[in-house]
């Protein structure tokens, strides 16, 4: 078992943080990589990006939004309990180098994925402007951590309950207009990444996004995670999860994410009835 040593609820209990004992993975993981977790014998294999690692303590941290049966099941796990299986580190690490000014844009739980990348980019000597957003103040996560990880932080909420009122893309546009931005990293819901990429394309600025298709093995053996990049089929678990944002077929990805929506509803519905 992979024991949970720390657990936090964020964004009003819709987002959960787990720090998990996994010394082998903690010793090897780099920013941008993910793990696959399985809670119990009957559970699904669920991919989550590592939001942090502590090689000394031998722990990894994941932060996830409760969206369906498996993440709801994860939410029930207490400190001292744990996951039956944790596999990783998987995927290619983020390519980190000094390029100058970088903008890191995060939406929703994408901020958790963005955090270690932001920190690594800053440590590599870049001027890192972070822009994070959520629907409202209550749903915003990791503000303090992102502030520490970046050179300057901008916060947006859709309803204006905190920070700039509006979408992250509005602040991003201002940055692209006023600064010599060399690289944009955008991580969040698929529509957000799509709009970020559309905008940076206009400014011709290189953009990295992190894709989250449905996965099973995470080692390149099933092809379930395939995404279309510049017209070519790639397996996100081994060729990604990060890709050139300007080459991604976002609409195809959004469709494929719906592959099992009926089954997911059925499964989550039953679980919610049994665990009110």
């Amino acid at each position, binding site marked *: 078992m992979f024991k949970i040593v720390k657990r936090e609820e964020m964004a009003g209990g819709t987002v959960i943080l787990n720090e998990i004992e996994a010394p*082998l*993975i903690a010793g*090897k993981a780099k920013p941008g990589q993910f793990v696959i977790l*399985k809670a119990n014998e*009957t*559970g*699904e*294999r669920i991919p989550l990006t590592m939001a942090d690692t502590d090689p000394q303590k031998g722990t990894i941290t994941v932060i996830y939004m409760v969206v369906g*049966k*498996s993440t709801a*099941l994860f939410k029930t796990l207490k400190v001292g309990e744990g996951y*039956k*299986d*944790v*596999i*990783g*580190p*998987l995927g290619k690490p983020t390519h980190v180098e000094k390029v100058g000014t970088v903008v890191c844009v995060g939406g929703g739980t994408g901020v958790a994925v963005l955090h270690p990348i932001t920190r690594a980019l800053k440590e590599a000597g870049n001027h890192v402007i972070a822009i994070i957003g959520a629907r409202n103040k209550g749903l915003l996560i990791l503000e303090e951590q992102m502030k520490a990880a970046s050179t300057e932080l901008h916060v947006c909420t859709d309803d204006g309950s905190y920070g700039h009122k509006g979408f992250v893309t509005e602040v991003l546009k201002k940055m692209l207009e006023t600064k010599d931005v060399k690289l944009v990293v955008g991580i969040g819901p698929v529509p957000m990444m799509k709009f970020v990429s559309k905008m940076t394309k206009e400014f011709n600025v290189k953009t990295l996004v992190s894709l989250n298709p449905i996965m*099973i*093995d995470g*080692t*390149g*053996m*099933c*092809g*379930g995670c*395939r995404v*279309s990049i510049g017209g070519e*089929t790639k397996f996100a678990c*081994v060729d990604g999860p990060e890709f050139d944002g300007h080459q991604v077929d976002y609409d*195809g990805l959004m*469709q*494929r994410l*719906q*592959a*099992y929506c009926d*089954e*997911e509803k*059925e*499964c989550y519905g*039953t679980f919610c009835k049994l665990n009110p």
Partner: protein
Amino acid sequence: MAEEEVKKAKKEAIPRQKMPEQAPEVRRRNFKEVPTGYTPETAILEAQRCLQCKKPGCVEGCPVQVDIPGFINHIKEGDFTGAARLLWQKNSLPAVCGRVCPQEVQCEGVCIVGKKGQPVAIGNLERFAADYERINGKGELPPKAPPTGKKIAVVGSGPSGLTVAGDLIAKGHEVTVLEAFHKPGGVLVYGIPEFRLPKEIVFSEVAFMEKQGVKLECNSVVGRTVTLDELFAQGYDAVYVGVGAGLPTFMNIPGENLIGVLSANEYLTRANLMKAYLFPEYDTPIVKGKNVVVLGAGNVAMDSARTAMRLGADNVKIVYRRSRQEMPARAAEIHHAEEEGIEFFLLTAPTRFLGDEKGRITGMECLKMELGEPDQSGRRRPIPVKGSEFKMDCDLVIVAVGAGANPLLTQSTPELSLNKRGYIIADPETGKTTKKGVWAGGDIVTGSATVILAMGAGRKAADSIHNYLKWGW
């Protein structure tokens, strides 16, 4: 008549004993094993059909030279444990091989009795002896040599890796098996379905090895969690790589990323490893197609088609670009599939997949083929027939047209030489690779082959590793 001939005539009078099977109408909707096994009485009767040849063809036909007349003789005498012991000498997973080996092109294909009538049912007898011992035997551990203090890592827990582990633990070495998935067994667990090979059999074989001292570490993706060089740094003296041919092949035709087009690897992994056939009791979902098309005609295709039928399909079609003669699946699988109502569309190839506005598959465009001159594989090359386009409706397509070498481990180990197709180059006699202290075997060396060949390669490598640990590279 000489006494010998009287005996022979009597034997020929005994017909080949059939194994009872679930009726096709029943089994096509459940996941229970299809044939239910011999009783001791039928096994003894079948064993009596063997002529105990002095120069047995069957043994030569067996890739690992099991003493077939020997184990059959034990069954004939009612000594089932003795039969199982003899099988183990050459084959560490007889309960598996009895079920999945292509006997018709191996031992049974060259059995003398088969020249005139039906060959001795060697596979069925092998299965019987192994099942009997697993269920009734005392689980006595095989003898183990005194500890050598040497440590071996086996990467991959398919039939090949398990064979190496079993052999080397018996020789007194410490063995750890590293497996990427959360469960051991390789294709035996994630690929071959329950109705053909109950998972309980594989897990009991693995448990038996653990009892003998083999350590099993699941969730270890070698190349990611740990590299080969790190294994040596951790104190391992030798490494065996048996990671299989785990890379799905797609057709590279338009529409392949539609929802409802799956690789056989994905479909079977969901169904078998993740037990999606028990959804929602198990959490992993699977597409339950009503009109299912399976592309390909090997064992993988038959397993996919029969799984789809069991998941409630109205009709399942095997679409294959060559003819019946070229179908690579075991004869028994084709026969079982046909009995279960799977339809065969031969000399047919898809050219594009069609979908609806939600990106779900609705059908495919196909072309009829005819056979031309033989190609490199010696099989006649399929050529499209002009103007033969037609449309086939479907809501699930499972692509089972072969597998390739997964580069995850090899990319992280540049010293391992690979062939053009990405498979590891290893000496066929010893399994030695181009990297010192590393052996490889099974599908990652040969490309997709068979369980018994993967095991045979494992046995040779285990002997070579043992010699290396004693005498050097």
